[in-house]
């Protein structure tokens, strides 16, 4: 119907491959760092002092109710105006980390709250310290329960990495934009990019599901159905 020409697009596959690689790097950094932020924030929200809890709650609400793009602009354009030097890739990773941190805080919190009070009391009765109770009794079952929601959020942040092309990061979307401006095969480029994202999303989903099986299979914990309406697509 359209007469599609993929030749010029594949002639620039070097840029696509580099972009794909950058998308992977951005996503992996954000997933690792964002989970750490979310985990720490959830721990603080669960057992920290009251002002800190309030601070975590404010962080979560602000991030979840503003667009990623604006968060990215504030970091990329705002921080240098305050005297912090930051390049586009660093700004992208920072914004993705802060964003995923807020969403994963809510997910971890739901998991932590699902651990029954009697479990914690049993741990205290065995003279475990607060930290030991948190680590062995609360944390592992909590993460096992919310693993599916967490994986969805990881995939969403991978898709969100495409927005980093707005500040000239040459990840998969940025590379596609460059290629379409050189070859004018705009529709074809974005078909290819869309298929790559789709494949990556499906592979990540399977890989994380397998990882979850491996990490949590012996514990026989049923995942809870999470009602998190504001999960970020």
């Amino acid at each position, binding site marked *: 119907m359209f007469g599609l020409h993929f030749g010029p697009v594949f002639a620039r596959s070097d840029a696509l491959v580099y972009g794909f690689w950058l998308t992977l790097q951005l996503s992996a950094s954000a997933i690792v760092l964002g989970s750490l932020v979310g985990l720490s924030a959830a721990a603080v929200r669960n057992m920290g002092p009251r002002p800190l809890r309030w601070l975590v709650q404010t962080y979560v609400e*602000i991030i979840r109710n503003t*667009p990623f*793009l604006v968060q990215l602009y*504030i970091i990329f354009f705002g921080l240098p105006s305050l005297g912090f030097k930051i390049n586009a890739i660093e700004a992208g990773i920072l914004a993705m980390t802060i964003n995923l941190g807020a969403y994963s805080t809510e997910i971890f919190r739901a998991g932590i709250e699902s651990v029954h009070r009697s479990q914690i009391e049993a741990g205290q009765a065995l003279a475990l310290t607060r930290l030991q109770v948190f680590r062995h009794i609360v944390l592992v079952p909590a993460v096992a329960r919310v693993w599916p929601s967490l994986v969805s959020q990881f995939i969403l942040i991978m898709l*969100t990495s495409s*927005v980093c092309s707005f500040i000239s990061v040459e990840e998969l979307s940025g590379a*596609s934009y460059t290629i379409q401006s050189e070859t004018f095969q705009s529709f074809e480029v974005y078909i290819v990019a869309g298929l790559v994202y789709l494949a990556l999303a499906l592979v990540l989903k399977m890989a994380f599901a397998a990882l979850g099986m491996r990490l949590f299979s012996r514990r026989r914990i049923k995942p809870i159905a999470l009602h998190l309406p504001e999960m970020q*697509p």
Partner: protein
Amino acid sequence: MIRNFGPSEILFLIESARWTLLLTFLAAAFGACGGLAVALARVAQTRAIRNFATGYIAVVQGIPVLILLFLSYYGLSRAGFNLPPIVAASISLAIYASGYLGDIWQGAIQSVPVQQWEASASLALTRPQQYRTVILPQAVRIALPPTVGFLVQLVKNTSIVSIVSVVELARAGQLVNNATFQPFPVFITVAAIYFVICFPLSLASRSLEMKFNAYRGG
């Protein structure tokens, strides 16, 4: 000439939020029609229709909104339609919304107990009658909190269409920043306007959720 970030700039930002709201409304309206079709197809009696709907949801949820936007933007122009950017933007956001709403609503339809289907079938209701009088009224209550929550995502993702120069809130922020070179106050203001739109929706979603859970518990 460098302008100062003053009241008239703030007013310009607030006014451009109208386009954000309009985009959200259009995407939600068309996305809801598409989403209902996807949800019903997902629980259809024919396997092929079910598989198609499952595939549709997987594809829409596996592709970034930005790429969906470019695909409809360039795809439509390649097909010979010379449409203004805001139409392509609304279409791509509607497709995005239909994928997620279809998924949410399918879950809601399936969480209506199977006995409701059996009871209404034994009253000789046809399938459309079952949907209209028995299943959907119950599914709507289950679906309402996550649907309102999804609207927050939709409002936020309208910011992405700023790349095809639709002057909605995010693009207006960019323009003001280019004129004033005061990125910090400008984008904080933009974020605050988004927050004012989104936060009440988040709260509404949460209170609906609590209401529903209380009902289930009692």
